Structure formats: C-alpha cells, structure tokens
C-alpha cells in the first residue's frame, strides 16, 4: 500500500450526521451525481442520533391551557384559534438565549427555514409523536417562550438521523463508512480536497474535490464529564484551523444541566420540559433563587451555573457532593413511559434508579460547542471579518459557527441548525458545482505521505526512551479543561490551563501508541484525536482568557457582567505564520432598532 491513491469527487462531505447527510441528500437531489461522504463511524452511528428532546420550529400546533402557568398542561390548538407561536417569537428567544452574540440576520434564516424543514422531515417519513388531531406534537423547552420542541418521544435525533440517511440512500449518495479525516487540502484560499484514512485497511487516500463540506460535529470530548460520544473530538475544527481557516467564538462551550452523575451521559432537557424539578441536598427547588420566572426552564447556561453554585456552596449531593437531584416522580408513570422512555432506561442503566419512583443524580456536563468554523448562511466558510469566502470550502452543523447560537444555544436549536444549514449548504454546493466549478490542482507537496509519517512517528519507539502514555496525557487535558475552562473561569484558572495545555502539547511529541498494525488501528487514531483536542483546547482557553466579561456560557468570576461596549463581538482565531494562534474580532450583526441588547433575565 503506497498511500498514492487519489479518489476524485465533485463534492466531498466529511461527517454523516444531520448536517452532512442533509447537504449530501439535497446536492444529490439537485442533480450533483458525484458525491462522496466520509464518516469515521457508520453514518447511523453519528452523534446527531443521540439528541433526545426535540427540534425547534414555531409550528404552533400546541399551546398552554389558559390559566395553568409556566409548567401547566398543554393542549392542541383548535382550528381557527389564534396561532400561539410565531417565527418572530422564536427569533427573539434565540437572540436572547445567545446573550445577543448571535448574528440576527442569520437567526432570522434559522427560524424561518425551520418550518419547512420540519414538514420536509415529516414528508420523508420521520415518525414524530402526534397530537390528538394528528399533527406533530410539541413540548416546552428551556428559554423558549412557547412550546415549540417538535418531538418523537425522547429519541428525536435518532428518528431524524435515520430518516435523512434513508433519503441519502434513496438518492444514491456514496458513503465511505469508517474513514478518518486527517487533513484539509487548502491552498491560496481554495479548498482542493482532503486526506483521509480507510480505518479498516489502514490505507491513506487523497480525495480530490471541487467542494469540501465539513460536518464533523462538536468538540466536547476535551472535558472530563461530557455528554458527547467518543467520536466527538473536534477533528474537523482542529484540521480546518491547521489548514489556515479561522475559527470563531471557540470559548463558548455549553454545559448541559442534566448529565448523569459521574458519567455525563445526557438526560434530556425534555425532563424539565415535561415538568421535572431540580433539587439541592436540602431538597430545595433552588432555581427560584436564580430564575424565579422560568425556574427549571431557564436556558442551559443559567441552570448549569445555578447548579454549580449550589455545589460550590456545599449543597450538592452524592458521595463527592458534585451532584444535584432531578425529580420526575410527580410526572407519573404514564407520562414518563410515553414521553421519556429512553431517559428512564438510561437512569436505570447508569444510576440503577427508576425515575418513576426515585430521584436521579445529575451534574452539569460538557455538551455543545457554540464555536467553530465561521460560515455564512449557505455554509460557505469565510476567511476573515470581511466575510471573504474560502472558495470551495463549506461547513455545517456543530463544527460550524454561523453564528446563530452566539454565547449560548437554546435546547432543540441544534438539531434545527444542523438540518437548516446542512440543507442550505447542499443547495449552495449544488449551485457551485452546476455553475461550472473546476477542480483546483492538488497541492504539490506529498500530503498523504506526510500523514503516513505522522502516524509512523506515533507508532515508533522514541530514541530518548521517554514514552508518555496517551491515557495519562488525555486525562490531564480533560481534567484541566473541566477544572479551569469549565462553567466558571478566571484569569488565574485560564492561565493555569494554558500553561498545562502548552506542556501537554510538548509531551505529545513523546507519545507512543501500543498498536503498530495497519488494520483497524484505533490506538493510533486515539492519539490523532488527542492531537486535535490539544489544538482546539488551547484556542478555547485563549479566547476565554481574552474575553474579559461574562456572556452566555462564558462566565468569568473576575468579570461577572456582560460588557457590550468592549465585548459585543465575535472572537476570530487563526494560525499566524509562526504557528501561534492570533486573535482578532468581528462585529455581531444586530438590528439596533428592533432587537437591541437588553438585560437577560428569566
């Protein structure tokens, strides 16, 4: 195997979750025939499928029963009644949720396209839960002022993923299942393809393409407690950065309030959407102190901070007092069995409790990456604050930063974002290809051989005999990110984190993996993933250190308030010529007349 093989496609898509699959399906449907989709796991194993609670869109199928309050019953909207929800409301909730860091022109696109995207899923066969009159059922979610989480019990992501994958098959999309992305070939502002490895055979192949789309997911695996799948190591984000693309708002990482205690596995926000309570060690519904109006249904950043405050002040539960109770008992067996069956199973498996009768122990868990590769509303990656396009390079889904989530994403807006912008990227790529895009020549350097050398170095004995165990290194990184770049941050904690990350980057040169075989070598791939995590973790800490304010999910104990004068702007980071990261900033798009920044209270 010489690693010299070149495979040519019009379009190469990396990642087969909702964003990548939507883009592939739409481009194929629009007549682009030569599409290759690479995925490090089988497409149906993608992490979009783990999303539970719902996908937002202001369909207005359901409304609160009059006079029952914030957590009262819901009913289907009778024919002819006033619509209880609107795209304007969804827009405002998302802007407020983002702590005004989301670009308002882009949020407008998100909430508007939402409606047709949900109907399209339904027409493609997605099995949603239904109202009595047969419409798509909806529930409440944090930060949304109307019930607009369209759901399928608590396996919404799963049914969406299967539906869109089926459509890709229907439209003849070619998948490369279990291929690991290694490098983006980007030269003179033009994307030319990628280098990737067939995990099964170990062959490294160059993919030559007119357009490349990254839909590689988020970067939550760099934290110790995380809801993310083991695959979510931010490969695309790190690789785009190394190829010279900028990254945006990397310091904004969402901690979900209800991860399973000690495991981090998600217990859906639908638990609270359906009426669940959070209790501290004293049995108090402590959210009344922090969000008296929305209570448990405040946005995730606020709820996670409230939990962490309770924990820090000694009111946590569990043997290390790092937990909080989630109480669902009052919902009753029937509601839990029909609305939250998967959550019940998860609690049984990992906590050994039945949520119908018992309290579940939870804790905040690293969940969602607001930051990523900056794009316009059509997935086109931009190179700078002037929105100069990187020709032929697209990104969508969690690895991208459009930015519609700003400093904090609302629950159910991520399945929506992946779908809306994956779909739009599909149309944009089809226009690009059908408009006569040409194959730009591959770079002259031997990229595949360089990647082979990178893997060979990881497998060979180091001459000085200093071998650093990979596990020790990755655990130190995860602990550092949790302790120092977590829910609360300060100059001191971030400087500590940066020093540790720099040391670990040095140590990484001494990592030697144990498996030296070619075939299905997940040992060497784990090292590659840690390499990626070390790259983006530095950028998260750096952006966080520079941002001297608290906004959304970025909470500085030394700068506890939002500072619109100095910090109402996006962070851009790119690799300078000497290899070090360089920060710059970009304006946020705001409609100053209709939706100027306000204090964010819930």
């Amino acid at each position: 195997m010489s690693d010299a093989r070149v495979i040519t496609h019009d379009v190469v898509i990396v990642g087969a979750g909702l964003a990548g699959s939507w883009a592939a399906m739409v481009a194929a449907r629009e007549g682009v025939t030569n599409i290759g989709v690479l995925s490090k796991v089988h497409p149906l194993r993608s992490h979009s499928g783990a999303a539970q609670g719902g996908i937002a869109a202001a369909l207005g199928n359901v409304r609160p029963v009059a006079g029952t309050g914030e957590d009262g019953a819901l009913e289907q909207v009778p024919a002819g009644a006033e619509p209880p929800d609107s795209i304007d409301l969804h827009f405002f909730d998302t802007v407020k949720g983002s702590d005004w860091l989301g670009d308002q022109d882009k949020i407008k696109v998100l909430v508007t396209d939402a409606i047709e995207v949900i109907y399209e899923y339904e027409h493609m066969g997605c099995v949603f839960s239904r109202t009595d009159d047969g419409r798509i059922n909806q529930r409440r979610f944090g930060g949304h002022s109307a019930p607009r989480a369209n759901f399928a019990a608590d396996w919404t992501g799963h049914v969406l993923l299967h539906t869109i994958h089926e459509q890709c098959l229907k439209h003849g999309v070619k998948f490369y299942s279990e291929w690991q992305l290694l490098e983006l070939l980007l030269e003179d502002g033009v994307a030319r393809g990628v280098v990737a490895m067939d995990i099964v055979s170990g062959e490294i192949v160059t993919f030559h393409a007119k357009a490349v789309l990254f839909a590689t997911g988020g970067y939550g695996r760099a934290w110790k407690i995380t809801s993310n799948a083991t695959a979510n190591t931010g490969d695309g984000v790190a690789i785009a950065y190394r190829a010279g693309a900028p990254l945006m708002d990397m310091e904004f990482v969402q901690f979900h309030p209800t991860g399973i205690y000690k495991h981090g596995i998600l217990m859906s926000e639908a638990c609270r959407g359906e009426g669940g309570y959070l209790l501290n060690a004293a049995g108090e519904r402590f959210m009344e102190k922090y969000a008296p109006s929305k209570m448990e249904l405040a946005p995730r950043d606020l709820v996670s901070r409230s939990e962490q405050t309770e924990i820090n002040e000694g009111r946590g539960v569990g043997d290390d007092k790092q937990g909080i109770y989630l109480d669902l008992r009052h919902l009753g067996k029937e509601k839990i069995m029909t609305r939250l069956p998967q959550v019940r199973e998860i609690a049984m498996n990992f906590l050994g409790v039945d949520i119908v009768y018992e309290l579940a122990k939870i804790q905040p868990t690293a969940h969602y990456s607001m930051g990523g590769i900056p794009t316009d509303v059509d997935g086109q990656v931009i190179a700078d604050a002037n929105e100069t396009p990187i020709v032929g390079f697209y990104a969508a889904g969690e690895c991208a930063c459009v930015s519609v989530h700003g400093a904090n994403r609302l629950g159910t807006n991520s399945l929506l974002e992946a779908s809306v912008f994956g779909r739009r990227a599909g149309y944009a790529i089809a226009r690009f290809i059908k408009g006569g895009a040409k194959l730009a020549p591959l770079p002259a350097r031997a990229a595949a051989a360089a990647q082979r050398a990178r893997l060979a170095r990881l497998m060979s004995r180091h001459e000085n005999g200093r071998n650093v165990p990979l596990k020790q290194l990755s655990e130190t990184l995860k602990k550092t990110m949790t302790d120092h770049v977590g829910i609360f941050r300060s100059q001191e904690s971030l400087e500590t984190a940066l020093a540790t990350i720099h040391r670990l980057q040095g140590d990484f040169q001494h990592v030697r993996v144990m498996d030296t075989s070619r075939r299905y070598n997940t040992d060497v791939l784990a090292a590659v993933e840690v390499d990626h995590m070390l790259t983006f973790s530095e950028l998260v800490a750096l952006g966080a250190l520079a941002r001297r304010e608290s906004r959304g999910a970025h909470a500085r104990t030394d700068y506890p308030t939002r500072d619109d004068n100095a910090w109402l702007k996006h962070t851009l980071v790119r690799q300078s010529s000497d290899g070090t990261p360089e920060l710059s900033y970009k304006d946020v798009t705001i409609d100053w007349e209709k939706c100027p920044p306000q204090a964010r209270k819930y």
Partner: protein
Amino acid sequence: MTNITVRIKRFNPDTDDKPRWQDYTVALDTEKTVLDALEEIKSEQDGSLTFRRSCRHAICGSCAMMVNRKNGLVCTKPLKEAVEEVGFFGAKNTVTIEPLPYLPVIKDLVVDQSVFWQQYEAVRPWVIPVENIPTKEFRMSQAEVDAMNRAETCIMCGACYSSCPVIAGNKSYIGPHALLKLFLRVMDPRDTEIEARLDQIANDNGAFRCHKVSNCIGACPKGLNPAQAISALGNMALRANKLSQARAERLKTLIAQVEASASE
C-alpha cells in the same frame, strides 16, 4: 476490590492463523460497564485490543458484541452483572467477550457488517409518499405511531441478526433487522407501496424463512420484537391486495384532512 478476568476472543487476519483467547485482569467496580472494562484494558494494558464504540448509552449501535455467549451492547451492561452470569467456560469471576457471530471478523471484536447493511438497503428503508405532498404535515394518528410498536427506535446494532439461527446458515435471508424496518414502512400510513413491499418479502428468503426461534427478541437491547413483526408481515403478505386497497383509502383521508385544515 475484587479482580476479575476478562477473556477476549482476538483475531487479526493479517497476523493470526486463527482466533485466540487472551485473558486480562481488571478490578471489579460496581459503577463500571463492560465497555469501561474494555476501554481500561485498551488504554492501560493492550492498545492493540480493538472494538467499536461511540455514544456510550445504547443509541448509536456501535458496540454490539457477544458477552458470555449472549449478544448485546457492552456500553450499558454492568460489569458486575456480566461477572455474575455463568460464563461459557464456567470459570468463576470471568467475563468472556467475543465478536458478533456469523460475520467475518475485521479485527478482534470488530466485524464486517457489509451484508447486514446491504439487506437493510435492499428493503428500501425510506418512505415512498404520495406525489401531491401537502404543505403541512400528514395527519397521522398517535395510534398509528403506536402500532409501529417502536420499530422506529431500532438502532441497527446487529445483535438480533447475529443471534438468528437462520442467518447462521443462510445469508440470503433478509434478516430480522431489515424485516423490522420493512414492517415499519408497511405500517406507515404515509407509504404508498405496501403491496410491493409485502410482495418483496413473501418468499423463502423473506418473512416465510423465519423459524420462529425468537432469539432476536432476547438479543435486542432496545426491547423490540422483530419476531412478532416478521410474523405480522407474513400474515399481511397473505392479504396484501386487501391491505393495499385499505392504504389507498387511508391515504385519501390523510391528505383530505391536511387540505381541510389548510383551508380553515
């Protein structure tokens, strides 16, 4: 803390003539899953041990394998529970782990599921709707969703497929996973091809091939019942024509409801 033995069937076709057993020792901790034990062995003792995993909570379907001769997902299986089961070798404090059977081994616990996926694709897993798509959603009832018996929650892990004695002897059999998917589509009131779908499986490699051994039920980590779905498909295939007419009528009301609501 007690130490236990994890006995793993290993095979790398590039270097091994035949599969071999290898024993590892891990500490038994009540919070550990079988997957945690595998991760621990890989990261601390033997990096060459190879297995698939991703989500860690039984939704991605990556980590199906055979533990103590029984198929399932290792991410949600407590190690303690596995130890307490009687192992294949009858050895105390020993958990045996093997790859899913009836499939070629790529390496250790990773199997080649190409045939499995081909069969899934062969049933055309997508819905084939009417041509005049409404502007809003089809009005499907919750009762119609419930009648699918949660088939839409199948994670395609392959535990059922690799427990099926028919598959063991005959790879032309379409398999419990693909038949369950087909059941989902046949039950979906939005699908227009009920007759063609039932026709596709009314043969000796389809629903009629099932021997009703029902291993698939015990193997399914999501509590689904492929055997029942296959049996239902067989029964439906015998009256496909009638069902097709009923579907055509239902499709009219599905759309009529939507149109009525649009003009409200």
